[in-house]
Structure formats: C-alpha cells, structure tokens
C-alpha cells in the first residue's frame, strides 16, 4: 500500500503542497470541496461545502479519544470522497488562505491519508459485487438463526434500514463516514440481517482487509 494508489491530479497536487509545507486551501469551486492545509498538513475538510460526518456530539465530548477518532475518520473519508468525486480534474490552490474552520489538534499527514485512501478503494473494490455506497439495502424480515448478538451501533443501523436505503443515506443519521457505514453494512450482510437485492457476488472471504493491504 502506497500513496501512489491514490494518484490523480488533485492527489498529486496535494502531495506537492505537503512536501513544500504549504498553508492554504485546495478547492474544487464547482463542488465546493475543500482540503485545508497548514504547514503541509490537513487541518480541515469540506465535502460539498459541509464538514463530513457529524463531528463531536453529545456522546463524543470534545477532547476525548472518541471525538479524536471520529474527527480523523470523517476527514480521511472526506478526502477519499473528494478525490473520487472528480479524479481527472485539477483542483484550485488558494495559498495563504486562512481556514476559519481550523480544528484544534487535527494535523493529518498527507502521504498517510493518501495511503489510507488507496487502501479504502481496494476494500471497496472487493465489496463492490455485494455492497456499495449507493446500493439499495433492506432489513431481512426473519432472523437466519434462532438468536444473534449485535452491538448497539449495528442495532442503530438496522433500525434505519428501511427497504431501498443506501449506506450513503445511512451514514449521516448514524454519525459515521460513508466508508465505515459500507463496512458496517457488510458485517450485517454476513450475519444475514440485511439483504442486498442488487448484489452480484457473494460476501468476500474472511480476509477482507488483509487482502487489500498488500
């Protein structure tokens, strides 16, 4: 897994700006996607003009490990969504533009984020025949076994999984990233609690993530 896996004009721009430790905002004005940099590190991300994910909420008090993890997840997956939205187009660089949205403490390393973006693309490719961000899902009406244990967050997803809903639509209400919601749906598909009517392939084998990290 290398940053090369995320190669595209905006990704190349991002790597160059990081190497030169630049301050400013890399933006696609048409879609209002933005990556905010300070000293070459990512301090904020906007996808479609909004911060991806819910950020810290009442159950993720600022300064806690849960809040830090949620922010990092939202930004990393926001960068993935941004780079995949229009991978052929070069982004516009606004040097020295000071971010009014700087998130205290967030300083993400660009090559590390791009490597993670590449890994996520490989995972999504392996899942593509079963579930994608925009594939309709439905809760199965009957349990496939007599009893099964699910976590509170799996339960929350199932409760929202009305027929035809997609992982992208579920991500916001669940307060999770799109990628994390796709992975969560995959867990529930394997447990037989969700159906994917448009699936063309069975669930990938046990090594979903390891197979994508080579």
């Amino acid at each position, binding site marked *: 897994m290398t940053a090369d896996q995320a190669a595209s004009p905006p990704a190349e721009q991002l790597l160059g700006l990081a190497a030169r430790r630049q301050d400013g905002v890399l933006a696609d004005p048409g879609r209002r996607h933005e990556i905010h940099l300070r000293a070459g590190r990512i301090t904020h991300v906007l996808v479609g003009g909004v911060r991806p994910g819910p950020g810290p909420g009442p159950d*993720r008090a600022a300064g806690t490990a849960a809040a830090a*993890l949620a922010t990092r997840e939202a930004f990393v997956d926001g960068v993935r969504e941004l780079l995949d939205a229009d991978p052929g187009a070069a982004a516009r660089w606004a040097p020295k533009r000071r971010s009014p949205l700087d998130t205290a403490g967030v300083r993400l390393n660009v090559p590390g984020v791009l490597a993670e973006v590449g890994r996520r693309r490989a995972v999504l490719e392996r899942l593509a025949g079963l579930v994608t961000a925009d594939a309709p899902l439905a809760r199965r009406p009957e349990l496939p076994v007599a009893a099964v244990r699910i976590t509170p967050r799996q339960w929350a997803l199932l409760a929202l999984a009305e027929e035809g809903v997609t992982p992208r639509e579920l991500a916001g209400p669940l307060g999770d990233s799109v990628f994390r919601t796709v992975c969560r749906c995959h867990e529930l598909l394997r447990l037989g609690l969700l159906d994917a009517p448009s699936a063309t392939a069975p669930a990938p084998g046990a090594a979903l993530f390891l197979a*994508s990290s080579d």
Partner: protein
Amino acid sequence: MTHPALRAVLAGLTGLEGFRLACLADPVTGTLVDVLPASADPRRAAAASAGLADLVQAVTGTAARLSPGGEAQDVVVTLTDACYVVRLLPVEGGDPLALLLVVDRGPAVLAFALRAVRRLDLDATAP
C-alpha cells in the same frame, strides 16, 4: 494524530518482556489508529491492522451466532516463536478499538502480556 490516551495505552506495553509490536486498529474498517514501535515498517503496520480487523470480525461474527449471550473480549494466538494477544478495548462514546500485542514466546511472557492488556480497559476510556 493520535489521542494521548490511545498513545499511552500502547506506550504502557513497550516495557513488557519480549515486546515486539503493539497496534490499535478500528475493527470495523481495518484502519490503523496507532502502532509502536513508531519505526515499524508502514507495510508491516498496515498488515497488522488489516489482519487484526479480519481476525476480530471473524471471532465476533462467530461469537454473535454461537454465544449470543456473551461478548468477545480477547483472543490469544500461539506461534512457534511468538504470541499474539488481541483485546477489544471499549472507548467511551464510540465503538471499541482492537489491540494487537505481539510478544516473544517464552516462559511466563504470555501470562504477563495477557494480564497487562486485561488491565487496559479503564485506561482506554480515560479522556
């Protein structure tokens, strides 16, 4: 960017006899959260977090069906020259993280490693 409480969890394990590697991963996505030693080869660290997430998903998925009244807590894998200790660490306000500790195989090393990771639960939820 790693939260100090999470870095402290890993740092507390590096003094164990036979310590080789410790990593924290999000078991839902396979994302590496942190690894020690920090000098670990990035590809090795990525393989550790990916394999850890796959292992946790296999174990929790099996336990969900076979033992729906219980909850997976830890897994020990014994190799000829090393031991892997896997522990699910609760994070207040979030999903659990998965911890992988790799230590040399030797007399009493596994017992000390297991005792150390089982004490980490409260530390992992500290703000």
